[in-house]
């Protein structure tokens, strides 16, 4: 019977994908590539077809690409119905219906949720509304910020020195704009890479002329008489005048629309099994709802079966492909999503790449190159195993370390490597901040072992 259902689904079923960005698009392509012939609907809250976000904080801010022209190339025809510019507002699991903001309802036989994340706004709403206070997540955000940078502001103030904030600061310096960066932690990138690497990132910023303020928080944004931001007040009581403020405080998962649906969805994302099937709030796996991309949190065998939320471009692609495959195949053919976490960033002309889960690392060894030269490979260890690696301008060695992580290779790294320096002979503490404190730039969140431990409050459905 089950086999018949899958055959029927593949032939004439209805699949709805909520979220029309990278994961949604790649899932749609995979469904068609693997023979799904039924009806396919993509729902997206932005009025644009799927576009790529990484260029928005790099080539776009440098004026080397248009914010309006980063649409993703399609790998194949997907023959889908597009519902763009209409957010999904609710989900009825028993009736198998997605509710839209315009009042429409779309029925599905199988659903993929790929609603991703949005930029965390400045918490004080009145200050957030000041002209010149910007976020950077969407192409509209990028277009706005680019125009403001082009206008030649006296100073840009970036709140939060995670990857996104640091990339904005880099673009400012490259285009000659004075920039101040404020970070609550002791250095940039500490949430993602720890304090040792963070110190390298801090040097990189200050040497490139960034006015970097660490260990401080922004207490308020001050506007002028016509509602434009004019200054930023800090917890050390200093005041910095700036006419553009970029709020770069990480992201919020787009799960609000699922409140009361009965899915295991909350601020930390939507829990799913390794096959991308969503859990309901009781921790029981659903049959017809799948999750992929930034909004998903799924268990990973290489990392102690912890649920990982990965805000990684490559994860969105890989998880979308796996979810799509699993949506239209028989049980025995399903695949687990066991992608090796990997991300990249570039700032101040330095290429930063990572594999594994650095934030799980207690210790760090510089196995190749040197921190002082800012060309190195750093290997993170956890409980005697290699758990992650990061490179600064040394990417060609990275896949070796990815294989070491896959094999659970021992840590510390005892064997010799080319370009090993005296500083790389002993492990040091990786120096991650207390995970209970908020930082601005984690790209991987360890979100516990099961959907039950996220203390989700269940609101009964409102319909």
């Amino acid at each position: 019977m089950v086999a018949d259902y899958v055959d029927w689904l593949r032939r004439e079923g209805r699949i709805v994908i909520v979220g029309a960005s990278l994961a949604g698009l790649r899932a749609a392509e995979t469904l068609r590539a693997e023979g799904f012939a039924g009806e396919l609907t993509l729902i997206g809250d932005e009025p644009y077809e799927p576009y790529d976000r990484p260029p928005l904080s790099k080539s776009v801010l440098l004026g080397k690409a248009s914010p309006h022209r980063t649409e993703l190339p399609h790998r194949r025809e997907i023959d889908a119905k597009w519902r763009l510019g209409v957010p999904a507002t609710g989900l009825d699991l028993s009736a198998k219906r997605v509710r839209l903001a315009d009042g429409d309802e779309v029925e599905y036989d199988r659903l993929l949720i790929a609603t991703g994340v949005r930029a965390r706004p400045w918490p004080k709403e009145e200050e957030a509304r000041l002209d010149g206070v910007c976020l950077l997540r969407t192409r509209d955000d990028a277009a706005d910020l680019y125009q403001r940078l082009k206008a030649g502001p006296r100073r840009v103030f970036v709140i939060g020195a995670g990857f996104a904030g640091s990339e904005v600061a880099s673009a400012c310096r490259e285009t000659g704009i004075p920039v101040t960066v404020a970070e609550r932690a002791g250095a940039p990138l500490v949430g993602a890479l720890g304090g040792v690497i963070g110190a390298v990132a801090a040097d990189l910023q200050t040497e490139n002329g960034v006015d970097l303020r660490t260990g401080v928080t922004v207490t308020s944004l001050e506007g002028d008489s016509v509602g434009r931001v004019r200054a930023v007040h800090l917890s050390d009581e200093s005041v910095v005048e700036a006419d553009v403020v970029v709020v770069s405080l990480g992201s919020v998962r787009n799960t609000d629309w699922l409140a009361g649906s009965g899915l295991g969805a909350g601020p930390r994302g939507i829990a799913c099994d390794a096959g991308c099937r969503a859990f309901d709030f009781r921790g029981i796996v659903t049959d017809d709802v799948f999750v992929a991309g930034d909004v998903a949190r799924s268990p990973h065998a290489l990392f102690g079966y912890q649920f990982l939320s990965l805000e990684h471009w490559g994860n969105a692609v890989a998880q979308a492909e796996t979810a799509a495959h699993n949506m239209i195949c028989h049980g025995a053919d399903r695949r687990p999503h066991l992608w090796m976490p990997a991300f990249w960033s570039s700032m101040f002309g330095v290429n930063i790449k990572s594999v594994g889960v650095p934030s799980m690392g207690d210790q760090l060894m510089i196995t190749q190159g040197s921190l002082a030269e800012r060309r190195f490979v750093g290997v993170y260890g956890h409980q005697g195993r290699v758990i992650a690696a990061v490179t600064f301008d040394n990417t060609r060695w990275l896949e070796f370390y990815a294989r070491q992580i896959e094999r659970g290779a021992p840590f510390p790294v005892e064997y010799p490597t080319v370009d090993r320096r005296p500083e790389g002979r002993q492990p040091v503490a990786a120096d991650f901040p207390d995970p209970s404190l908020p930082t601005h730039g984690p790209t991987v969140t360890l979100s516990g072992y099961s959907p039950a431990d996220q203390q989700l409050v269940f609101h009964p459905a409102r319909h």
Partner: protein
Amino acid sequence: MTQASLFRRITDFANRADPYPLYEELRKTPVLCEEEGGPYVISSYWDIEALLHDPRISSDAANLAAAGDDALSGPEATGLPPSFIRLDPPEHDRLRRIANSSFGPPHRPRRIENMRGELGEIVTGLIDGFGDARQIDLVDQFAYPFPVTVICRLLGVPREDEPRFRAWVDPIVAGLDPDTRTSAESERTAQEARLQLGMYLNGLVEQRAKEPRDDMLSDLVNSHGPDGAMTTMEVLTTAVLLLIAGHETTVNLITNGMLTLLRHPEVLERLRNDPGLSVRIVEELLRYEPPVQIVPQRTCIADIELRGVTIPKGSHIWLMLAAGNRDPERFKDPERFDPDREDIQHLGFGSGIHSCFGAPLARVEAQIALSELARRLEDPRLVEDPPPYRQNAVLRGPRHLNIAFEGLR
């Protein structure tokens, strides 16, 4: 039975025209060590790819020598220290970055792209030079003079000096051949030739230090970027490397390419009608008939476990690029020359930090050469198949390629 070892048969000149059946046999033992203390020969795609990115593998000539090898390039034996191809980071990276600053992005992003017109003119001149002939030796009349002219102009070496440096380049290249490099005498000859070539280039370098021109020698000797300047010795070793690598491999790429196209006339015909096809043809050639067949100069600095075999620290490693390129575990129908294949992620230029420095130039040269030969030679065909080969098993290619044709278009 005392059959010659598989590795000896591969390097045996008698098998030069078609080593591929031997490579196939080799892949049956993908990690092969045939004699105590001998090299470990690696022939599967994924293993080669992994080892090219493995920081436990050294390219440093000193490690190779320490591991019991001959004096292939110990500085004391030669007077000329190793170039960056035989160094590990950080020296390798620093020298390669400085060399790159006069060659490619980010500092000189358009140097190669801007040479296209000039390359086209050189090719046109050489083909016009065939005149009324109805038969040519492609190697002597085209595939050799073309890249030599290009690398001379790029570096700033007078083209008319070619006979002089030829006399030094030949023994240096012969020194790379596994069959001859075992002889101490050919070693000494190679080292002496390298020194001579370095001294010749030193004359040009001194000149450029005083009067810089728009060429790479001038840029190398006057480099002063964030990595500082090269020493004169570093300029010379780099110039020797670029001069040799700049043509000795490209001659094989072009000749192997034309040979392969003449063996696949339907592809040659398509190229004649669509010069753009040369892009895919060259990539497939780099898989199917790579000009550098073997990376012979690596050493492990730690024990390495591969497919259940422990390769002990200090072992020499030979990476059989050409065998990996036809690994059926990696490529569908690998023995077929098929420029339409979707997946051509070849090892033709190596990979990792030592991947071919001149790859973009070699690509452009081969694309222009092959598409123009296809367009202009009327009804070309091979006079003999297989053609006579060069001795070298590492830099493998025909010594002559006689082509008959009905005239020029």
